């Protein structure tokens, strides 16, 4: 192994995936993410960006190719996935908070089950992150009584409380009412500036421009372009990216 490879915390090599219905979701996708880097994946719906994100923590299995996360090949059946997943936090489009538990217990549960923290320690960590996302005052409420934006904050706190090395965001603001989007993006920007490795799938170009170290443009299951925000927005190389940006901006 050469030294250059060591600093990459995520390395995807030639990843291919075809869905059972015949749709080729990923065609030969390769991408390396450095530790502390913020990578934003953009592209039209159906371009494979969400599918690719989900292969990183193996919510989606791949047909061929390799994905190395923090030194472990997650596509290898012998790898202990639960261990790797505990290091990779994920925030979903539809929040997926646990409706039968209070906000506090949503954030505590996986800490005690997976990280084996004591109830007391887990509660302290939970409150720290609930404070960070600005929802500590709702700690005893059930998710059913919260707005979408508040639920997403709980979901972010739940992922962060595991102290992950990597955070994946899968269109975290797409299901929110417009007035809630800004608050969630602010939290994500703050995380980005704190140096945690982030892979973000989003349609929010403002966020991509401001927070990304690199932007990945995907189309029809392929990576078309990888570049800095400046280059992507000012001088896109490919016709398809220019077309996409002209439609969305």
């Amino acid at each position, binding site marked *: 192994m050469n030294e250059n490879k060591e600093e990459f915390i995520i390395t995807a090599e030639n990843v291919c995936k075809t869905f059972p219905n015949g749709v080729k979701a990923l065609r030969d996708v390769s991408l390396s993410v450095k530790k502390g880097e913020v990578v934003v994946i953009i592209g039209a719906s159906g371009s494979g960006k969400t599918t690719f994100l989900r292969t990183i*923590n193996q*919510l989606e299995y791949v047909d061929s190719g390799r994905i190395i996360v923090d030194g472990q090949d997650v596509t290898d059946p012998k790898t202990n996935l*639960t*261990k790797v*997943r*505990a*290091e*990779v*936090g*994920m925030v*979903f489009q*539809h*929040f*997926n*908070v*646990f*409706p*039968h538990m209070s906000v506090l217990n949503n954030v505590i*549960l*996986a800490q005690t*089950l*997976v990280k084996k923290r004591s109830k007391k320690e887990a509660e302290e960590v939970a409150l720290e992150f609930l404070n960070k996302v600005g929802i500590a005052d709702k700690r005893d409420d*059930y998710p*059913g009584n919260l707005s979408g934006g508040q639920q997403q904050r709980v*979901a972010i706190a*739940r*992922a962060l409380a*595991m102290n992950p090395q990597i955070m*994946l965001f899968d269109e975290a603001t797409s299901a929110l009412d417009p007035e809630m989007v800004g608050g969630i993006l602010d939290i994500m920007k703050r995380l980005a500036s704190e140096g945690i490795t982030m892979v973000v799938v989003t349609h929010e170009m403002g966020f991509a421009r401001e927070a990304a170290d690199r932007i990945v443009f995907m189309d029809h299951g392929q990576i078309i372009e990888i570049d800095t925000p400046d280059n992507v927005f000012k001088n896109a190389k490919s016709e398809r990216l220019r077309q996409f940006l002209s439609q969305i901006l």
Partner: protein
Amino acid sequence: MRKQNKGKKLLWNIAFVFVLIGLGFFIYRASLRINYSWNWRAVPSYIVYHSIKKIDSPVNGVVLGHSKDTLTIKSLNDKIIKLKVEHTKLKKGDKVGKNESVGFDSHYQAGPLLMGLIMTLKISLASIIMALIIGFITGLMRISNNPLLKNLAVTYIELIRGTPLLVQIFIVYFFIGTIFNMTRFIAGAFALAVFEGAYIAEIIRAGIQSIAKGQTEASLALGMNYFQIMRYIIMPQAIKRVLPALAGQFISLIKDSSLLSIISITELTKAGREVVSSTFSPFEVWFTVAALYFILTYTLSLLDGYIERRLAQDE
């Protein structure tokens, strides 16, 4: 805006009561036409009766005293003997001979119908516990990706749902019961559990599948394993959702337990049949048996409503 008129609602409720009274009157008139002589008086004694027992002295001796339903006798070889006797004419110092009557004892005893009800309750409870275990395991097997587990579960569910309970009871009792030397009670409870377990498996499966996929994905992403996800995330939500269906299945189980009378388990229905053959009051007895079943099932139904309301509070 259209509003439900309160006065009108009350009127319809009164009408409901009148219809009930009318139905009762109709049944009464119908029974008069067939010259049935109602005899409700005997019925209570088949539920609970007051039994009076004559008590004999086991030894020759002298009465020392009688207090609080206890008669104390000192035998000839100076042994103190205490007997439970409620009513006695003997006083301190009286002599009693062996096998001589010393008085009476009375107590309330469960009649055949109450004994039958208790047996129904016992066997239903045993079956419910077994059926839940069977249902949980096969419900999980049913949605497993492993073809062996899945096919086993599907075969079991289809076979059980496709054959009559009565036939299953015979097979379990005469075939499986004989091989494994099961008692009547165990064979009966097992047959019932195997039958209801197939339905419970389908209820559990539907409950699990009704929980959004995102719940599992979020749990996986947090590093939880299959068992933890089932135990802490899926099951608590699924059970809450299928509680009404489960309660309905338990009620069915209690009613289906009446079929166990066919293998001579003296539960409520068999007890009813025995009482009918000794009283020749079939109407009264069967109405009473029905009422006793209804008390069981309605209690369960109330309990379910209570639990559902309790669970609905946390959300």
